[in-house]
């Protein structure tokens, strides 16, 4: 291999890996099971979607708001869970603010295999999202694609909703 080829190949490798890194970004990912968690009556053109604030982390919350601003072409508002549930003030209009996207977290435990010598299981917490119908006080199923980082699930959730109504 000539001395000219090596720097060229090295530079090309960096470009290739840059493309791989960009392609492997949750910003483009969607979930294929949208029918199981997007309400049939949900129409983002007719209602304003309420999104529950992620109060655990201010930075994650900001990332979620930035992402909605970039990707979600319909009307939405970030509010806390209490506001979603209480239906007070302008949010009492459950026709206009019918649906909310709320955070559902759950823990999963990897239990000890039979015969294993270690004593404990490994518990992980995953953040998921589900629609909540404020008019009917009804929770829809979560996406069942939880992640330890809320933003990792939030991005595909928003992508999926946007794609669903394209």
């Amino acid at each position, binding site marked *: 291999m000539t001395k000219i080829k090596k720097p060229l190949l090295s530079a090309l490798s960096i470009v290739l*890996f840059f493309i791989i890194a960009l392609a492997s970004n949750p*910003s483009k990912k969607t979930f294929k099971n949208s029918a199981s968690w997007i309400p049939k009556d949900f129409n983002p053109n007719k209602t304003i979607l309420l999104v529950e604030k992620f109060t655990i982390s201010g930075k994650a919350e900001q990332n979620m708001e*930035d992402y909605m601003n970039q990707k979600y072409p319909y009307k939405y508002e970030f509010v806390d869970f209490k506001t979603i549930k209480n239906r007070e003030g302008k949010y009492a209009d459950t026709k206009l603010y019918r649906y909310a996207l709320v955070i559902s977290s759950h823990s999963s435990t990897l239990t000890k295999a039979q015969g294993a010598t270690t004593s404990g299981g490994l518990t992980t917490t*995953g953040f998921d999202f589900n629609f909540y119908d404020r008019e009917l006080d009804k929770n829809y199923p979560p996406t069942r694609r*939880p*992640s330890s980082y809320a933003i*990792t*699930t939030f991005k595909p959730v928003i992508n999926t909703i946007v794609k669903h109504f394209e």
Partner: protein
Amino acid sequence: MISLSKTTDIFLNVVIPVFLGYVFYLLENEIVVPGMIKNYLPDGLWAYALQSCILIIWNRKMNIIWSIAIMLFAVTFELLQYLHFIKGTGDFYDIITYFIFFGIALTTNKFFISNIYIKLTNYDKD
């Protein structure tokens, strides 16, 4: 002593890590593994593959300039995400992960040369 061809080296240290990282990316919302592994292992495998790729191009001889170049590239990549110039979420821990896996690739490079690799005749010579 085991001898590997350059093709096998590329497959083992570049193709497989990238593929595994991609599989983790695809399945990150499907499998139950600790968050740290789920979020950082694909980045780490990517960094390992990139460093290995550069090492293999340079016949497994450490090239300081290109090694530093890819480290700067990784930092810049995260910085550009943080500043929203490119898609993604800039994360300081991603940078730490990149450096750990760059280090693993550099460390195993010595192992490959001294223990496994050795037929440098498998490589093109300058």
